[in-house]
């Protein structure tokens, strides 16, 4: 079955680095036997959800406090295609949930799934997601954090093929905290598309991660972080490593509304080229309408430090291993921000495995 996909055009500025062709190819691919997914759950207590092509595999899942329900639609060009029923984590005031893990297995063609995470005042949650398989996987995740609610989130994209697109929409209330880390360490195309708004005073947002690309792959993040209230803090730290003829693009924007005085927004976008044939695009943007704000931003692209490489080799480390260690150190800035140790180590191992294969 072929559907006519309504997709954005790369002539639009916000989509200029999107690999719409790869997405379309993935969407039109044939379904195959799904790969295993249950072995991707980490050794953590709490809920475990396994979705195969967007459908819950109940026998392999433990829902805990998570429910399946109708999710509000989005008007985002990709997000709006993930319609209808999806998973929902809602926590009452002061509730603290055990970690929620979600593994998404895709077997080909297209699959869509919406989700929501809604935390009442002072509630705290951790949500960790893993994507494996092939085909086009499209997700909408809506996050609403009430005053002082805290969400720790980490997402790894490990598909062997195809394309993963994530649309993340978040609203942060007063003193709420969102820390989200994304790692793309598979061999699929990807777009991580975020719209985060701080609507309450003193909110805190970390939104960043690492994209690792090789072959002919194209991956990107496109994130807008909006400060609409006083005393907000945000950090967008992204790292891109590009090998072969691949392309990794980081577009991150900070918007500070007129009333959002005392905003502290940090942006750090850095790219590393493993070969000169690869491309890293960086687009840091600041749009500031308040006058009393602090926004630090840095954007650099470079190659591995030749002096450090020789130093390591002179101590006995073979060149590919030295390259892997230096690259890993470059990516660590992003991954080390994951607060949960088990998750952090798993993500680090994924990055290592990617590097071992790429170098």
């Amino acid at each position, binding site marked *: 079955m072929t559907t006519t996909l309504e997709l954005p055009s790369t002539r639009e500025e916000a989509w200029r680095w999107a690999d719409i062709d790869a997405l379309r190819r993935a969407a039109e691919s044939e379904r195959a036997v799904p790969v295993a997914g249950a072995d991707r759950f980490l050794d953590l207590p709490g809920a475990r959800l396994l979705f195969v092509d967007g459908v819950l595999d109940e026998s392999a899942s433990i829902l805990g406090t998570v429910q399946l329900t109708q999710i509000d639609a989005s008007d985002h060009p990709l997000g709006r295609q993930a319609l209808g029923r999806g998973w929902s984590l809602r926590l009452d005031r002061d509730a603290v949930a055990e970690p929620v893990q979600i593994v998404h297995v895709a077997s080909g063609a297209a699959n869509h799934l919406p989700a929501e995470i809604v935390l009442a005042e002072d509630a705290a949650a951790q949500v960790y997601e893993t994507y494996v398989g092939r085909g086009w996987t499209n997700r909408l995740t809506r996050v609403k954090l009430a005053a002082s609610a805290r969400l720790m989130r980490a997402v790894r994209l490990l598909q062997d093929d195809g394309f993963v697109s994530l649309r993340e929409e978040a609203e942060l209330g007063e003193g709420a905290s969102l820390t989200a880390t994304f790692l793309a360490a598979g061999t699929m195309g990807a777009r991580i598309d975020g719209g985060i708004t701080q609507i309450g005073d003193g909110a805190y947002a970390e939104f960043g991660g690492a994209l690792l690309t090789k072959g002919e792959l194209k991956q990107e993040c496109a994130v807008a972080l909006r400060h609409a209230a006083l005393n907000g803090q945000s950090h967008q730290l992204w790292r891109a490593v590009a090998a072969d003829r691949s392309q990794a693009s980081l577009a991150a924007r900070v918007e500070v509304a007129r009333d959002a005085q005392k905003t502290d927004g940090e942006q750090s976008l850095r790219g590393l080229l493993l070969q000169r044939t690869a491309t890293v695009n960086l687009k840091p943007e600041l749009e500031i309408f308040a006058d009393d704000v602090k926004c630090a931003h840095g954007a650099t692209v470079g190659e591995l430090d030749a002096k450090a490489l020789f130093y390591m080799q002179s101590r006995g480390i073979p060149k590919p291993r030295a390259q892997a260690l230096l690259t890993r*150190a470059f990516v660590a800035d992003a991954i080390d921000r994951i607060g949960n140790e088990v998750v952090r180590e798993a993500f680090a191992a994924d990055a290592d495995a990617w590097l071992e294969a790429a170098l």
Partner: protein
Amino acid sequence: MTMLKIENLHAEIDGKPILKGLTLEVNAGEVHAIMGPNGAGKSTLGYVLGGRPGYEVTEGSVTFDGVDLLELEPNERAAAGLFLGFQYPVEIPGVSNVQFLRESLNAQRGQRDEKPLSGGEFLKLARAQADGLGLNQDMLKRPVNVGFSGGEKKRNEMVQMGILNPKFAILDETDSGLDIDALRIVGDGINRIMRAPDKAVLLITHYQRLLDYVQPDRVHVLADGRIVRSGGPELALELEREGYAGVEEAAA
């Protein structure tokens, strides 16, 4: 027994000749000092022996323990027992000293078909070497050389040498940047680690003071890419008194 044999070595950087027919032999059990004016090519010699990319050998040969050294990759040279103490040790943000050295040691052991050391075994060794050189244990956990003072970097080079336990060390101005106490500690360290009948050292230095602790068997003067004079320990004292003026004239 000859350990390192350099014959008529010519090398250039970016097409610019730096080493211009350098000949030198070092026997097992010996310490040789190399002195010479700034820009003479002393560090270049160290880098060429270490195999640094961009340093092109255009003529001559180097044999190490009977093997053609120039045919080996830098990491293979290390595994063969060569250690290069850097004049300017390199900072590696994001890689801890412990990880760096454990990787190094186990990579060398792997290339020599020896079993890798476990984390515990390695830490014990690393702590002992750090103690021996008065390097704070905490510095082992820090990223390699990042934020280290000049003297700490040099001590760290010696800790690395202690852990890797090479057969042949080329130490490029390991004494520069060291305070008086550190100089003695480093000197003792070099003697402890490298004074053995089956080991040898090439000590590049500008000053006699390190040679008070690590007594050389031979002293050479490197000027304009060649060894222009060789002698016993007394040559270093003479140079300290009279400078290089006489030596360079003699070479011309």
